[in-house]
């Protein structure tokens, strides 16, 4: 094992800025995205969604719709009783065979009662899109409208309508209605030992993943074998989920995802769209294509869970943390798709910690994984809170962070390497923190005020199992078979670069075979920022296996091939692996108009060794920009009286445009801790997680008013300063 932060010898391919190997196909329109797939005799499908936030379906009459010429088949809860396993999971952890048996609050493909505006009620397959859409209007649904509840704290009140018989606190993996609780030490002792105790409340909004490509799916059956073309972040988990849900063997399901237009977490696992399309195709006896509109995608898939966070923090007078207590509420929508955790407390070293999180059912759109699932909202809460503690103690927040930030994971387990201090010191210097940060927030004269904010992060970079196969033919072509898709982070290119490096051959000799479960071995899927770490490591191992074959048998000739494969499952020896980072932001707030502009943004990251600086920088920039959007723009506003979402879509949710995106400066502090492929750690999610807090803290520093509810929009700024 390499020593911590030892100097890294340069490599031949890895570490060099490399354009994507499929860039030309993508920008010339040659790349086949899911929605480009057309099969002979293919039907088109549309979904009828609930117009009510909560209602029981008394009766569905599909006779008129079926009579419309061109309509081939219609599914409703009456003729399609399939459980979408990954859509509702006790405890919200990974969906698997065991959890399928346990899960009590099951989500069906079509539910009765329907529990949010957008819950699928029926699906139609017809000869073309227009007939399918017209048919939806002919389906008559007789609803018994039920009471509904939108906010998690409201939903826990005794008189709130029960969305599930056991109540609105989502069940854990043991099917108990208990909040998720973690404790270290005893917070009451910690508060007694504190000189000062601060309390506050922060809230975050639902933000949609808002990937460019709306969901679509094409299903076709040959005998008892199902082929699904679907934009998924994980072909392997999509296959196992779909097989489990449909009750067919995995080898009877083929998942193909060649090119995709992003997902940011809402295309992982399988989707109800996959199951609906598969069943429509089976019933119609023809290939079926289902397409989501942008509105379908916004309300019918999922976004980041909104939270309410109550903090209580005890410190000594010189700014040393004694106790942190969090009581949090996460709005999960009516189905438990993910944990609903609120991360961030672990960023601090502190002897007494207590975190009690209530994942709560509501009648809003479902919440689930979105880039750093529990962190951007949690980091916003805790890092705003700590920024405020530092302010009230008259401390520079950089000094406060340096004094209190994590040194060991949960204060006990060492990291494989530790660079957080370096991230903060080098960042503060390059950013000119002392010049840009205002010791007295809001002190600029005149209506236009500047200020600076900082935040930091540590993000999991665990190892794990994966597979790779490399085949060498007599022409000297190396074919790398990996079960990755390419969500946008450039996995294909990364795998090719790692293979070229490990094989000591030029990149041009390597081709990648990806995105098809019938051709590629298992890969974890592009979630959790782990494809490079896990599948990249398998590629090195497969290359080593191939090199041993070559050494033994010589290079292949004629029609012969040599194949190297590997299925590693590396483990850490009692350490925790994390990527680190710190973000520094300067904003300008026009206090007459309530406008916030980001003037300068510096993101400093240790993601281990950088595989491809071109792609890595883009990942950091993209995450930071997304964080700015979450801090200042995005929301899904509901009408409280009727439970209807009002701002679904790119226009309504006020997503940032290119013109809103500031220049993001990226600085990498590279390291090789001896784990992962050449020391690579996680990147994809890590840059969004501190961004929201950094922007919010900069706004505070500029205007001298703490904005405690996201997004920090004009109405809130002007309201606060009025």
């Amino acid at each position, binding site marked *: 094992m390499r020593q911590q932060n030892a100097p890294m010898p340069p490599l031949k391919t890895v570490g060099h800025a490399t354009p994507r190997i499929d860039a030309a196909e993508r920008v010339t329109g040659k790349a086949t995205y899911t929605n480009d797939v057309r099969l002979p005799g293919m039907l088109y499908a549309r979904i009828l969604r609930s117009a009510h936030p909560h209602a029981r379906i008394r009766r569905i009459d599909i006779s008129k719709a079926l009579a419309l010429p061109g309509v081939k088949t219609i599914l409703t809860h009456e003729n399609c009783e399939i459980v979408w396993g990954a859509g509702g999971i006790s405890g919200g952890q990974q969906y698997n065979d065991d959890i399928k048996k346990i899960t009590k609050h099951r989500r069906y493909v079509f539910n009765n009662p329907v529990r949010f505006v957008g819950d699928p009620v029926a699906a139609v397959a017809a000869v073309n899109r*227009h007939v399918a859409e017209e048919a939806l209007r002919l389906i008559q649904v007789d609803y018994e409208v039920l009471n509904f509840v939108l906010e998690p704290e409201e939903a826990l009140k005794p008189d709130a309508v029960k969305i599930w018989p056991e109540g609105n606190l989502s069940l854990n993996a043991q099917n108990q209605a208990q909040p998720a609780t973690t404790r270290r030490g005893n917070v009451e002792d910690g508060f007694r030992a504190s000189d000062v105790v601060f309390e506050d409340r922060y809230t975050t909004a639902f933000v949609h993943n808002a990937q460019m490509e709306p969901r679509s799916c094409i299903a076709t059956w040959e005998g008892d074998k199902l082929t699904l073309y679907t934009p998924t972040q994980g072909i392997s988990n999509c296959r196992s989920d779909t097989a489990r849900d449909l009750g067919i063997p995995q080898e009877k399901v083929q998942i193909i995802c060649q090119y995709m237009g992003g997902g940011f977490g809402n295309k992982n696992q399988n989707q109800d769209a996959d199951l609906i399309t598969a069943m429509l195709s089976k019933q119609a006896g023809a290939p079926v294509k289902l397409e989501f509109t942008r509105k379908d995608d916004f309300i019918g898939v999922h976004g980041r869970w909104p939270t309410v966070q109550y903090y209580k923090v005890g410190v000594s007078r010189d700014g040393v943390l004694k106790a942190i207590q969090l009581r949090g509420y996460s709005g999960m929508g009516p189905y438990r798709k993910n944990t609903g955790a609120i991360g961030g407390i672990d960023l601090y070293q502190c002897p007494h910690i207590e975190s009690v999180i209530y994942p709560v059912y509501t009648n809003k759109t479902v919440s689930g994984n979105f880039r750093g699932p529990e962190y951007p909202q949690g980091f916003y809460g805790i890092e705003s809170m700590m920024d405020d503690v530092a302010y009230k103690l008259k401390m520079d927040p950089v000094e406060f962070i340096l004094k209190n930030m994590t040194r060991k994971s949960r204060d006990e387990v060492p990291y494989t390497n530790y660079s957080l201090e370096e991230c903060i010191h080098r960042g503060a210097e390059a950013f000119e923190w002392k010049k840009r940060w205002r010791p007295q927030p809001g002190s600029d004269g005149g*209506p236009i005020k500047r200020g600076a904010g900082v935040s930091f992060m540590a993000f999991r970079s665990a190892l794990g199992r994966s597979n790779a196969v490399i085949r060498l033919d007599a022409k000297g072509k190396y074919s790398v078979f990996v079960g990755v898709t390419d969500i946008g982070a450039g996995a294909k290119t990364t795998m090719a670069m790692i293979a070229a490096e490990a094989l000591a051959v030029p990149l041009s000799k390597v081709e990648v075979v990806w995105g098809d479960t019938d051709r590629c071995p298992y890969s974890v899927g592009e979630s959790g920022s782990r494809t490079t770490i896990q599948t990249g490591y398998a590629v090195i191992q497969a290359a080593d296996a191939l090199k041993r074959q070559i050494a033994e048998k010589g290079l292949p000739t004629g029609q012969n091939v040599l194949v190297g494969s590997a299925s590693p499952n590396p483990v850490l020896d009692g350490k925790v692996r994390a990527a680190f980072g710190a973000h520094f932001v300067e904003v300008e707030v026009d206090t*007459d*108009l309530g406008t916030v502009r980001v003037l300068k943004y510096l993101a400093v990251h240790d993601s281990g060794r950088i595989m491809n600086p071109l792609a890595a920088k883009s990942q950091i920039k993209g995450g930071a920009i997304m964080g700015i959007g979450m801090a200042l723009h995005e929301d899904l*506003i509901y009408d*409280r009286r009727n439970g*209807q979402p009002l701002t679904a879509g790119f226009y309504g949710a006020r997503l940032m445009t290119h013109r809103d995106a500031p220049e993001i400066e990226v600085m990498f502090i590279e390291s090789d801790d001896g784990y992962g492929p050449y020391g690579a750690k996680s990147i994809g999610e890590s840059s969004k997680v501190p961004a929201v807090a950094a922007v919010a803290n900069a706004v505070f520093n500029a205007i001298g008013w703490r904005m405690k509810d996201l997004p920090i929009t*004009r109405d809130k700024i*002007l309201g606060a300063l*009025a």
Partner: protein
Amino acid sequence: MKSFANSNARDLQHAVTLAQQTHQQGHAAAFVGGGSDLLALVKERIVGPDVLVNLKTIKGLDQVKPANDGVNIGGLITLDALSRHDLIRTRYTVLAEAAETVATPQIRNVGTLAGNVCQRPWCWYFRNGFPCYKNGGNTCFSFVGENQFHAIFGGGPSYIVHPSDTAVALLALDAKFRIAGPSGERILPAAEFFALPQQNPARENVLAPDEALAEIQVPVTRMGTRSTYHKIMDREAWTHAVVSAAVVLEMDKQVCRSARVVLGGVAPIPWRLPKVEQMLAGQRINEALAAKAAETALEGAKPLAKNAYKVPLTKGVVRRTLLELAARG
């Protein structure tokens, strides 16, 4: 979306006839220029015309033509062409500036001036198909609902804000609207074209069925006139004005001879401020006067539960826009 037929119009009268014939057959017709607003409404099933009467086939209706007493602008000119037109940029700056703030380059490449002026509201209740006044119902959901972006002036019974940027500029330029209809043509001053909800809560203007906005006539600006459009947006592109101001000042050296000030984003119609205009006439525009004008501008504002921020915001916009324009040499 619902299926529809397309009917190409040869000229304005033909367009009106096509629309009339469609109605006489019991079908719904809609005039279409660039279609950027109409098609979105059709796709969302907010409107469901059986026949689209295509105005783009009418020749010459997309031109800027100097006239004796000003300039005549064909309603079919694209927002992009309008914003780039030399004469418009130099003499009617407020209109060019308003046009270039609309939506996105793609939409400005197809969206027309007439279409922008007649654009339907972007109230989220209307666009989400709620049975509100604008959708033929008898409720305004925003009044006790989510009204962050709604009217602080002129509201009731509907509280939408007029969505058009160019309309605000045209009112500030004292433009006249030439309208083609079943009984021939009529010309209306901009101020009489837009209609408050108390007049007709379902519509934003006085266009009768089968009437189309054909041309806009802008009177000549006098020497020393300068103008500008200031639009506050919640992002840098593709969104409507939270608040906007169109200001036209006729200056005699440092003294403002006359002023026209119109607000967007605050009322169901472009909202003219005659009291402010009187206050500015014959005065030097300095900090104190601009601040006083801003206070006066907001007299009578009636914010709803969630849009009180528009009051200080609008004050800021009025004050800043007056000062910046007065300082422009």
